[in-house]
């Protein structure tokens, strides 16, 4: 009799394990189907369009790890301009109080074809503006240094489509599984943080040298 009871509990355990694991695997299939049907938004791009290493980065300009990653990518693209193509997308985090406003400024710079010059200032001077209560005067200064038309910038910042574009970029990232920044998609494979980025870029560059 006790043997039969033991067996029932073991069976129940087995059944619960199968159902629990099945639920997660089913969820993954559902989410990956949702991801493949996501819209594409026009990117902010740099490098050789037909490069073997295609990177899409989701960035929050106030995130310290993003600044480190961006500095590394800038260097590695300068050293390998034909091998890497980078697309930048916005993923401002709500935990960073200037995450959204810095993305709006960057998008307005992009609309004047000055995205990279402006984002370089955001990245290089992050330690300076991140603790500020109001970084807008500093961003205006960066805009001036980047050669932006300040009147057009002011109008752009009042344009609702800028906010919508940034939110769409973030929503797209969420659908793809982005949860923190910086997140990179290198040749469509996801990597989070600079450690994973560096390892994969080094691997791909070494592979390219061998071939």
């Amino acid at each position, binding site marked *: 009799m006790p043997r039969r009871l033991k067996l029932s509990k073991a069976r129940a355990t087995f059944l619960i394990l199968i159902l629990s694991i099945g639920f997660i695997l089913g*969820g993954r299939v559902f989410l990956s189907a949702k991801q493949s049907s996501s819209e594409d938004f026009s990117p902010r791009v740099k490098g050789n369009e037909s490069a073997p290493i295609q990177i899409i980065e989701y960035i929050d300009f106030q995130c310290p790890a993003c600044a480190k990653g961006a500095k590394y990518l800038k260097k590695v693209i300068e050293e390998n301009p034909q091998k890497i193509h980078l697309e930048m997308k916005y993923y401002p985090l709500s935990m960073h109080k200037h995450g959204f406003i810095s993305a709006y400024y960057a998008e307005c710079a992009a609309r004047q074809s000055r995205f990279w010059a402006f984002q370089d200032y955001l990245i290089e001077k992050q330690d300076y503006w991140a603790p500020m209560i109001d970084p807008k005067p500093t961003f205006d200064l960066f805009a001036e240094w980047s050669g932006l038309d300040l009147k057009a910038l002011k109008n752009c910042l009042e344009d609702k489509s800028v906010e919508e574009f940034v939110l769409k970029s973030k929503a797209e990232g969420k659908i793809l599984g982005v949860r923190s920044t910086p997140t990179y998609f290198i040749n469509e494979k996801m990597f989070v943080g600079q450690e994973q980025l560096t390892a994969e870029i080094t691997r791909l560059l070494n592979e390219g040298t061998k071939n």
Partner: protein
Amino acid sequence: MKEQKINLFVACRFLIGVFFIVSGAHKLLSPQGNFLYVVQSYDILPSALEKLAAAMVPWVEYLTGIFIVLGLWLRPALQGLRLLLIVFILIVSQAILRHLPLEECGCFGELFSLPLRTVLFMDTALLLFASLLVKNIEKIKSLSLDSHFEIK
């Protein structure tokens, strides 16, 4: 037949279980790179073990949570949870002591973001709750599969 009734201990058992189901499932349904990044940020394991931990920990959280909610293998599940919480406390403590540049724990993705000290407090509280539940194991067996199998 034993009386099956809900009490404060049983409510705590459900809450803790659901908490770990949500935490584990959220990580399991996100791409693995996200949690691997969190593990790497704590800078405590060699590279190969980081990948193993990033793959295993969410499953342990999720399945332990399910077993606690259902009340199946309740004592081992709670003991496992206590062990997991002790490991979390040690990892978060070393990150605080080493002043690692972590803005938040990374435990729940974007579900909610908690600074390290808050997480340390929360994990300690959860450990105390889990220990309390182990101590009162007979009282939390109401509405559990364990009690169902005992009654049989």
